[in-house]
């Protein structure tokens, strides 16, 4: 039985890794397609890629879009989630369905609405795109921040601080934020990787006018597959670094919380957050 389980998991991991592996090999192959094994190996695709100003421009655009939107999310969304969770439980039921939002209103639908509303030039399209992404960050942020708040019993901490003479704003900054910091960071990193790899809204709303990394990837794919593979691998390495950060933070979080309350079961933040899977199809 044990062997069987191990076998299934191995098969699954292989199934998931296979496409990534062939992409990796392809990015180092001089040519692949005439024979079963590549005819030779080279680093020239990477060299070519890193010298392409358009690649660097695409990365920069993705970064700008991601950072600007994430900043808005952190400034507007995170305090609102905390505020509702602690002081306005009446509004909480409005927040709950947003976990299903990406399914109920798929990207293509929201993009359609945004385009029909804003192609008249009333609002810069970059802002429209950023606004659209903001909407789809709701599920990640809500889940990470909420579970973090629950874990530390944020309501109680705010009350305790207030009883000791702190103002609400002071208690929020000095007590609440530092204690949900890890939840916020994990949520941010998940959001970051989702925004950074965003394709659908960007392609529909701005398309070729704003070539982000994914759009660049697709354009290059049609011209030179090897180069495109090199883009994919570079992009994946960036995201692996981000994921490693997430792991590290989640582990830190677990250590702290398990010390905090002996009996309290650790509720994973990244683990089992299927929402993360949604944005990149």
């Amino acid at each position: 039985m044990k062997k069987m389980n191990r076998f299934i998991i191995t098969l699954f991991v292989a199934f998931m890794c296979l496409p990534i592996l062939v992409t990796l090999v392809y990015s180092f192959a001089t040519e692949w397609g005439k024979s079963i094994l590549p005819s030779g190996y080279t680093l020239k695709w990477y060299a070519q890629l890193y010298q392409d100003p358009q690649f660097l421009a695409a990365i920069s655009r993705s970064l700008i879009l991601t950072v600007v939107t994430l900043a808005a999310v952190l400034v507007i969304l995170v305090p609102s989630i905390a505020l509702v969770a602690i002081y306005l439980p009446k509004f909480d039921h409005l927040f709950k369905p947003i976990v299903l939002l990406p399914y109920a209103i798929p990207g293509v639908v929201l993009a359609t609405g945004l385009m029909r509303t804003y192609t008249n030039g009333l609002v810069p399209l970059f802002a429209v795109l950023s606004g659209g992404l903001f909407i789809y960050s709701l599920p990640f942020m809500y889940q990470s921040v909420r579970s973090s708040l629950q874990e530390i019993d944020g309501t109680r901490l705010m009350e305790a601080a207030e009883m000791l003479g702190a103002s609400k704003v002071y208690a929020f900054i000095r007590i609440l934020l530092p204690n949900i910091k890890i939840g916020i960071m994990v949520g941010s990193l998940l959001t970051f990787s989702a925004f950074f790899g965003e394709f659908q809204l960007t392609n529909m709303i701005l398309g070729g006018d704003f070539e982000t990394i994914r759009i660049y990837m697709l354009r290059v794919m049609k011209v030179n597959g090897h180069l495109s593979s090199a883009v994919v691998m570079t992009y994946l390495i960036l995201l692996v670094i981000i994921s490693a950060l997430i792991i590290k933070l989640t582990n830190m979080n677990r250590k702290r919380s398990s010390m905090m309350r002996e009996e309290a079961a650790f509720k994973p933040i990244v683990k089992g957050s299927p929402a993360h899977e949604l944005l990149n199809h």
Partner: protein
Amino acid sequence: MQQHWKRQAQACLLPLAAVLLLFLAVPLVIMIRQSFGDQNGDGFSFANFMQILSQPFYYDAFRNSFFISIYSALAGLVLAMFVAAALARMNEKAQEKITLFINMTANFAGVPLAFAYIILLGNAGLVTLILQHMGISLQSFFNLYSWQGLALTYVYFQVPLGVLFLYPAFKGMDQRWGEAVALLGASRFSFWARIGIPHILPSVLGTFIILFANGMGTYETAYALVGGTVSLVTTRIASSVSGDIFAQPQIGSAMAVLFSILMIAVLLVNQYLLHLFRRDIK
């Protein structure tokens, strides 16, 4: 004093409300309005909807999306059940590693995934070549750039998503299995009949519906793999709205409205089923 503070707290929510209004509510309302309008968004009729429901050019998109999603969700679900069951019996460390692995591979969906499948199964793909050497022509029964290829590609991201959704239920079931054996000496059969199946069925159904919804909403993978050659809801809407040649935004809006209604209906069915099954719990 308390009332005063409540009002202040509500005021703090205004920026979020503004964003939701500007980038969610208003666009959706305008889109719904335009779905009843003509080319310029004026007038009021069901003409756009009639056109979608009567012309194969449009309703085929729904049909294709529907079947590809059903197939990929079913395949994904069955495979995910094996993986989730196996994963539930692994130790904690392994479980953590796998869930993180799944989260990482999520970044591979879309353009990279489409391209990797082209390298594997395309006209000059690795698998195609290997089969050719063995004297089998892959193209004679499988075409990557058709609905077949799409369904197969979707499976790649359906399986891990299914695992994430199913695995908690399987884990809970393993616990119950242990308890049932310890307390009642239940046989394997009676365990499955009385506890196992009732316990995982809601999760399995719910996961199927989520996977189905996920398949329906997929855009990037399809766009990268087949472009416009296979008509799907997502790509058809996108090209109606932003395509240069066939731009018919009012039809696109109507399709988007139908699409969203369909998705919401599916989710409501899901909620209802969950409610039905979980009556005993709530």
